[in-house]
């Protein structure tokens, strides 16, 4: 399996590389751009990025595995990040998470629906605590969410 970004992404990658005085510094933006296009960072893309930046592939894996927003497995078409830190917990985040999982039909340990529509990840504070409990759908903020609105959100996601 080999990897190659689209021409448009390659152009953005080259611009990112040019923004830093050392090529290796562009690793985070390069991985972000790859993930933005592919939905995750496949192993072949790790090797591609290493080659592009003149790094050992281990250096790429090391970074990829450190940051929680990078995905080393394919994700659903929509990614939902739901906050479970303190302000959201005080406002009922655990119930919202349970409702979302139930509505999505996620079994124990699963984070992506069987049809590949939605990935649900519980995360730490989203910096939106005055809208607790809150979540982000593909990076767009939502909140406060209730058990009922969680069900409506899932219906909306299924329709995408």
């Amino acid at each position, binding site marked *: 399996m080999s990897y190659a970004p689209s021409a448009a992404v390659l152009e953005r990658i080259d611009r990112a590389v040019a923004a830093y005085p050392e090529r290796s510094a562009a690793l985070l933006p390069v991985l972000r751009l790859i993930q933005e296009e592919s939905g995750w960072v496949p192993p072949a893309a790790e090797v591609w990025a290493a080659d592009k930046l003149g790094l050992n592939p281990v250096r790429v894996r*090391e970074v990829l595995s450190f940051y929680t927003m990078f995905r080393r497995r394919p994700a659903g078409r929509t990614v939902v990040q739901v906050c479970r830190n303190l302000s959201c917990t005080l406002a009922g985040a655990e119930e919202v998470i349970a409702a979302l999982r139930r509505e999505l039909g996620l079994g124990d340990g699963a984070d992506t629906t069987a049809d590949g529509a939605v990935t649900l990840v519980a995360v730490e504070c989203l*910096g939106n*605590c005055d809208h607790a409990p809150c979540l982000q759908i593909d990076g767009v903020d939502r909140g406060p969410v209730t058990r009922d609105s969680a069900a409506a959100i899932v219906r909306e996601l299924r329709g995408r």
Partner: protein
Amino acid sequence: MSQDTVRLIPSDEGSWRLDAYLRRGGYEAARKAVTSMAPAGIIAEVRKAGLRGRGGAGFPAGLKWSFVPQGVSGPKYLCVNADEGEPGTFKDRAILVRDPHRLLEGMVIAAFAVGIHTAIVYVRGEYERIAGRLREAMAEAEGAGFLGPDIFGSGFGLEVVIHFGAGAYICGEETALLESVEGRRGTPRLKPPFPAVAGLFRAPTVINNVETLANVPSIIGRGADWFTAQGLPKDCGTRLFSVSGAVRRPGLYELPTGIPLRTLIEDHAGGPPEGVSVKAVIPGGLSAPVLRADELEAHLDFESMALVCSMAGSAGVIVIGDRTPMLEVLGVMSRFYAHESCGQCTPCRIGTSWIHRTVTRIAAGQGRRGDLDLILSLADGIKGRTLCPMGDAAALPIQALVTKFRDELEQAVER
């Protein structure tokens, strides 16, 4: 708030656009600084204003700038900390959303004062959408000659790069942030050398929080004396207090430093909802040791908070109501630190996860006598024994919570 106080969060229509910012007097301070002031004079003015860092540690901004060696050749960097990872804090978000030009203006002034030509804004990955406003503002400012190679026709140039994080709390720590910008895991560096001497790409680097820099335009525009007239003598100006949890009006409140915690919670945030009373308050982001309901007379400034063994931190105030079990709070806290420890130091890595396992066991009804003492001693083993301040930031709030709510937690253990 009267007209004469710092207003970091404007409410006018389209407040984030350049024309709106110019109507509010925007970029006049940067023009004054760049075209008519000496760099040393700017640093002196900011020092006189006593502006303390708004990122958490409260270090005086002007003093930090003065540590950068002058007269040496080679690049220097300004890193803007927009990682905003401290749970309970959402103020830098508001500046990015409502007033990105104020941040850019503060950056221009700081960069000119220190002789910096490249700035990196480190934005947490979760704020990527929000950063669209900053990107637009950068383009507007460049178009108007307020940013770019020749600012106000003075020959002074500043280039700005946005660098996104990717979900790691520790990257808010300044040296971990530098590692992350350099394309590595966010593992804090041993200090010294301090970033002012050897920071990003080993060059002298200033790292400041978004809110800190957003205060700079009004200090230069109106003068240090105007700034010091607000807040306290050693901790001046206003702060953006993020209030969340058990209050009627969660939100952001800009108020002078040193206001009583009770005033903020009751008068501004509306107090707890009907039928709920305040049990505890975390006054400065999750890492600030908890205060009991009988400690609400304490004032919200760096020194007053230290007097009650807590910290003003990021000014994220989380109010906990009487119906919330403290074991639940402890569970969130211990999970967070165990998850976010970068793993470099054994006490932090092992200590936080051992504490979390113990708390999880108690929550599952398998508590053992001595568990609370175990947690306290594990926290003690972290305290003062780690490379970066995160060790203490985990140990201290956990110890405070266990100590102050021991009776309640003891009941949960015995259950």
